[in-house]
């Protein structure tokens, strides 16, 4: 690896990480704003123009808050838990391609941090690990509400991880690869949402459950468990949990986009077919796919907030029933159907 490649790599990592952090911060603003308007009120309005500096103010506030460590907590695990969940949430984005290739001064820069040929497995491994963060946080706090939250989280994870795994099997069968880039490239002609509608719906629902968002926010169910697994955390440790939840939302949105909505491709139009003569034009055209990808991700982020404003939380038994009796058979049916249709060469 020569020096330029290394420098490009470092720049890419920094850019993606900063962009991710900023998106997480402003996602909280967006959430409060959208929720506010859906409830016929304004949302944040005072700090900066339309409350735009609110996330920064929140960040500073959380940073200077007292970091309370509970006496009865299991110290090592208590300190470790927020880091597990945050690292898992942020590291998942490493394999998600957010654009095609950028050609700059004769160098071809692939717009992704790492092109792992088993990218999808990597993401699923990390998302399964992140539930440890929640469960351990709940257990080590030595608080009944936190423990309940942690337990619910692990039960929820077992119910949904199977369906989420099965729901992408169809996509993998059609692509014949575990690499996320290959999956996106296979959708150049047609998005997988058309050939895999059941897989898409199952994946989306499980994705919402995966990042503990309403209506599947049982681990933190504030009206019954105070704050669930993070009830004993304050200051930056709480902020880490908060950031992890939003980072998870971004990762799930990005995954839905890459797996089912054709990643950075537009329908009926190939951006790569435009070949401007000037350098600036070329850069703009090669950055356009990032915009397309971002727009799709933004739609899903909005959809997540929209769901939160609309649906009440599921009851515990309803969640289990829904996971095992509806989503799981549906995902299995989708696998069988896709296999049959694929062998019959219909899709």
């Amino acid at each position, binding site marked *: 690896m020569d020096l330029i490649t290394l420098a490009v790599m470092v720049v890419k990592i920094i850019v993606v990480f900063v962009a991710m952090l900023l998106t997480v911060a402003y996602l909280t603003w967006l959430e409060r704003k*959208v929720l506010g308007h*859906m409830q*016929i*009120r*304004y949302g944040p*309005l005072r700090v900066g123009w339309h409350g735009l500096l609110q996330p920064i103010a929140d960040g500073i506030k959380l940073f200077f808050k007292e970091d309370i460590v509970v006496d009865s907590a299991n110290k090592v695990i208590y300190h470790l838990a927020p880091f597990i969940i945050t690292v898992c949430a942020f590291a998942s984005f490493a394999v998600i391609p957010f654009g095609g290739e950028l050609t700059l001064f004769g160098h071809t820069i692939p717009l992704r941090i790492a092109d792992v040929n088993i990218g999808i497995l990597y993401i699923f491994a990390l998302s399964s690990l992140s539930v440890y963060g929640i469960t351990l946080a709940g257990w080590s706090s030595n608080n009944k509400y936190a423990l309940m939250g942690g337990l619910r989280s692990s039960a929820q994870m077992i119910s949904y991880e199977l369906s989420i795994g099965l729901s992408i099997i169809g996509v993998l069968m059609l692509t014949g690869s575990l690499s996320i880039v290959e999956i996106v490239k296979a959708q150049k002609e047609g998005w997988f949402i058309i050939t895999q509608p059941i897989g898409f719906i199952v994946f989306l629902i499980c994705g919402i459950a995966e990042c503990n968002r309403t209506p599947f926010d049982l681990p933190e169910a504030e009206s019954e468990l105070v704050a669930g697994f993070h009830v004993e955390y304050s200051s930056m440790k709480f902020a880490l949990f908060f950031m992890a939840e939003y980072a998870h939302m971004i990762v799930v949105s990005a995954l839905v986009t890459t797996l089912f909505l054709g990643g950075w491709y537009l329908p009926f139009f190939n951006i790569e077919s435009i070949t401007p003569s000037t350098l600036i034009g070329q850069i703009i055209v090669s950055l356009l796919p990032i915009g397309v990808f971002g727009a799709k991700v933004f739609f899903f982020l909005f959809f997540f907030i929209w769901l939160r*404003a609309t649906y009440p939380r599921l009851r515990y038994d309803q969640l289990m029933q829904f996971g095992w009796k509806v989503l799981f058979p549906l995902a299995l049916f989708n696998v069988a159907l896709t296999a049959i249709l694929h062998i019959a060469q219909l899709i």
Partner: protein
Amino acid sequence: MSVVKSIWALICGLQETLGYFLKTTVFGKPATLKYPEERWTPYPRFRGLHRLLRTEEGKEKCVACCLCAAVCPAQCITIETAENEHHEKYAQRYEIDGARCIFCGYCVEACPVGALLMTGEYELADFTRDKLIYTKERLLEE
């Protein structure tokens, strides 16, 4: 059928919230006010802070009959009566304890001479309890 119906119900729910979102962003404004800048104008019959009225000659209407103090369920009206130079009964001291008043308006209803009125004044918060006691002078203002 029930499955279709419940899925349809979910979609209707999404429609509802999106409708409100559009109604409060693109096509209109939220129902809440940006308070210190925008203030709500009370309706004519709104029950805000009390006011003691004067006659056209500037004399106090109040005849110190103490019916308001008698009817007050929160017992927040204190009246001390006295006799003036024309040998008429008048309220030497007339105090409403704003901290205890429940703004029910019974005092206004009970007044036989219509000396008491409730205004639209609703920003009544203050830093000390003493400042919440409305003396006769304060009630007669304006």
